[in-house]
């Protein structure tokens, strides 16, 4: 980090203001050169104009703020020039700064420097990306909670407990005359506690991922039960073509919406029925795939028709998935009763609606929402695959440790616990290879 980097930190395009940011050892020297007013004190706003020192040509008027290391975002000297949010004026300023010795920043380089200077840990760095990329209010909340160290705190607690247990085991191995060996019961309790903490953190992944990346809600059922009508009702506009003819939807239809603050992708599938129509067969395969990949399945039935063999066959496909049984067309004379349906689904709750008449839609929406976020999120959530995998591995080692406790293999228990600690270190970025860092920081836009 022996050079000074520069980038436009606001999005490319026309806006109210545009920010050019410098970070690195020669930041102040370079920044001051292009600004008309002497920036005497750090963290103070100065108004002036930005110019090219070689040609003395004025580029724009604006504000300069200097953050002195280590009290800055990156932990290095940072100089910010805020000016009008055009494209060319900002590019011109950057060009001038590069001529003065700054280097164009790579993707995520500002945050990378912040990480390397210990200003944030890896989870917090990832939260920065998530915050920038957040599509809904809920996602902003989750990212913010991570940014404020929610996860890091929990991992710190897990690490603290692991260290305590390891030091008890190691103490007894190192100094058998002076340190008493923990009893099987004590050791088992300590490990069980930390295992539960880790598991509960891991369990937030499902929800975290749904909020962060969007939840896939798949509408499934045999042909002509009204799936496309429900899709349109949920989207509040006519996205899918609706007709009386069974098999109208030939392919899956998708739409992403802001569903009460959560990004949700509703997917309407082609109904499943025995058919020789090649296109419909393809659509059917896609339907099956969509169901397998869906987070939540809205499994629909037609109240005005008897239960068919196809219904039952289809039911098997959704077994084991997070599903909501929806009985549609309740405005028509009933041929399929709730009771009958309940016996098929082992007394799962059944929601009665009329997609066409928009009846019961609000109740259904509430139920979908509750399925995505089981209860109000109180803890920080883990959201990335990387975090999930680390925690999953850690759980494995802790479970193995628990198993070893009973056979008095304390030296091996210790090995397993140490592996778990290493994984926690990887999680927060204390132990991480540069390859992983490169991958994470390349997700940033330049200037962050």
């Amino acid at each position: 980090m022996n050079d000074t980097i520069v980038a436009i930190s606001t999005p490319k395009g026309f806006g109210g203001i545009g920010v050019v940011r410098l970070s690195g050892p020669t930041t102040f020297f370079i920044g001051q050169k292009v600004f008309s007013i002497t920036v005497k004190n750090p963290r103070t706003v100065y108004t002036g104009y930005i110019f090219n020192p070689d040609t003395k040509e004025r580029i724009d008027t604006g504000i300069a703020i200097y953050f002195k290391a280590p009290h800055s975002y990156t932990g290095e000297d940072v100089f910010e020039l805020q000016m009008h949010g055009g494209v060319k004026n900002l590019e011109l300023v950057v060009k001038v700064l590069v001529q003065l010795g700054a280097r164009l920043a790579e993707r995520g380089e500002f945050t990378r420097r912040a990480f390397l200077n210990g200003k944030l840990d890896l989870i917090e760095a990832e939260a920065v990306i998530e915050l920038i990329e957040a599509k809904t209010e809920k996602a902003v909340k989750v990212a913010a909670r991570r940014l404020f160290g929610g996860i890091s705190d929990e991992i710190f607690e897990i690490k603290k407990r692991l260290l305590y247990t390891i030091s008890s085991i190691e103490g007894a191995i190192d100094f058998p005359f002076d340190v008493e060996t923990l009893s099987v019961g004590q050791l088992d309790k300590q490990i069980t506690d930390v295992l539960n903490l880790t598991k509960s953190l891991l369990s937030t992944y499902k929800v975290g991922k749904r909020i962060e990346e969007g939840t896939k809600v798949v509408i499934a059922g045999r042909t002509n039960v009204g799936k496309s009508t429900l899709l349109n009702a949920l989207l509040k506009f006519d996205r899918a073509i609706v007709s009386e003819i069974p098999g109208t939807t030939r392919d899956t239809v998708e739409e992403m919406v802001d569903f009460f603050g959560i990004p949700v992708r509703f997917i309407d599938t082609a109904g499943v029925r025995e058919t020789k129509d090649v296109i419909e067969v393809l659509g059917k395969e896609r339907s099956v795939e969509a169901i397998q990949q869906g987070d939540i399945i809205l499994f629909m039935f037609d109240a005005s028709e008897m239960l068919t063999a196809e219904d039952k066959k289809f039911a098997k496909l959704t077994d084991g998935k997070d599903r909501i049984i929806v009985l549609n067309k309740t405005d028509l004379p009933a041929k399929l009763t709730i009771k009958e349906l309940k016996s098929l689904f082992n007394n799962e709750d059944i929601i009665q609606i009329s997609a066409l008449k928009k009846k019961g839609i609000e109740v259904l929406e509430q139920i979908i929402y509750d399925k995505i976020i089981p209860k109000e999120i109180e803890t920080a959530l883990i959201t990335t695959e990387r975090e999930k995998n680390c925690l999953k591995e850690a759980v494995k080692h802790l479970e193995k440790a628990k198993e070893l406790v009973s056979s008095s293999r304390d030296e091996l228990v210790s090995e397993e616990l140490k592996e778990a600690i290493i994984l926690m270190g990887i999680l927060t970025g204390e132990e991480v290879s540069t390859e992983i860092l490169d991958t994470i920081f390349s997700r940033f836009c330049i200037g962050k």
Partner: protein
Amino acid sequence: MFDLIVVGAGHAGVEAALASARMGAETLLITIDSDSVGWMPCNPAIGGPGKAQIVREVDALGGVMALNADATLTQIKMLNMSKGPAVWSLRVQCDKWAYSLGMKERVENQPHLHLRQGIVTRLIVQKDRVKGVEVSDGMKFYSSAVIITAGTYLNGRIYISKWMQPAGRWAEPPANSLSDNLKELGFKIKRFNTGTTPRVDKRSIDFSKLSVEKGDEIPLHFSFWNEPKIYENQIDSYLGWTNEKTIEITRKYLDMSPSVMGIMVKTGPRTCPSMEEKVRWFPDKIRHQFFLEQEGFHTNEMYMQGMYMSMPYENQLEVLRTIPGLENVEIIRPAYVIDYDYIVPTQLNLNYETKIIEGLFIAGQPNGTTGYDEAAGQGILAGINAALKIKGKEPFILSRSEAYLGVMTDDILTKELFEPYRITPSHCEHRLLLRQDNADLRLTRKGYQIGVVEEWKYRKLEEKEKMINEIKMELESISLKPNKETLSRLKSFGIKEINKPMLLTDLFKRHNFTKEDLRKLEPSFTGYPDELLEEVESDIKYAGYIVREQNKIKESIRWEKFTIPVDFDYAAVPSLSKEGRERLTQVRPKSLAQAMRVSGVRPADIQMLLLYFKSSKK
């Protein structure tokens, strides 16, 4: 003219001198008192967790510590037996006079080794190269290399409360001018302290109020080159407890400690707190345990493990007499403390040669370590490396993944010492692999190849290896089928059943399947010695973990190969943390792997270095 001069005949000096002499170097061993070769001024005990592994490694390299311990022990015990074999650790107590005499005999009869009495006052150095030593009577000895193994003699000062006397040990003169000479030569020197317990008269103790601690009555041996045997006539030790009265009286005399009075340096081993420190550091404890251990077959002096003190003699007596069983105790030798110089060991290369004076090696306590075992380990490595250097051969360096000796070397060369360094199993990340039982399999061949291990020991190793292979092959060739007959046999032996054909080796993987079970199932294994079966058992039971460790070793070798130039300018990497840069500049690690282990260096510093090297290579 000698090849090598070793200064000091303690545990480091003896192993160093014997090793170089075994390798054919004409070696001069100079000691302040030729009556106290291999003397144990503190507890006459050898081994214990971490230390036992070192002693076995010294033994595997042809050293004498384990042999001499076997010959002179008064009690033998395997510690940590309730845990797995990776942390089993042998500990013996010795007759301290017999031990010293045994060492003297070995030294005096070693070809190429010459013993002289004298106080070394200065090194003869020309152009940053050592040429020999000068002793106090003016006599000069010349050599190609010198090893300093001066124990606590460098500017040593002993204290009992405010009474102070310059001494290397009780009643033995210190080596002050040598220490001053090292400072003049440019070495960075710091001070540590340590202490010893009172020795009490056995006849003045009521043992009925203490609990007996007996030695093990199973076949054992410290040295690989002795056969295991049951030791008869072991001396019992005793376990006792202090009480609230003891603590109360001790508290009265806290300000009589020389470290509290400010006349002595404060940094001693935290793992051996004195009675005064125990009272200060653990104010909530209402009692502390101690052990009484007899110092030899022909003495009534008993060492009081755990009762280090530095208050005046009469106060020591008052404190001890609060203890049940010690109401009438008589002290023969009072406890005392000592502070001494050590040469900050980051000034050494991996072969124990100093960075600034060529041919000068340092081993043992002068490197800031504590313990006979640690000293012996450094001694043998320094002796071997000095001999290799004289012969113009490559240095002998053990890595952290090869031996506890490698762990210790790396630790003292890279970590900042805040107290005297003591090895324990928790220092060793590869301890499942580096066990006391396989030190010979790990090191003896290497030792033989460089000429420090005798031929007959090497032959014995080969036999052992052959037999272990036989056992492993047999285990892999015999398969049990889950038929009626086998199942009923398993049941009758109380072994958990099998539900598919299974090799014996796989059965051995089970944590509760022992070598006795194996012998019951397959009597042919009765012919193999216990130890070899245990050896194989450990290898099999730890196999999964060992594979994991070996993968990590491979990973770390990647970083070991990432070398940093010795003269690298850390100031060129501006984003290094202040402490990280200072420590790296001081230690000058040879590789990125070593840099990672330097204390005070943060992971972010390593990232910086890596980025720097990556970008400078472009």
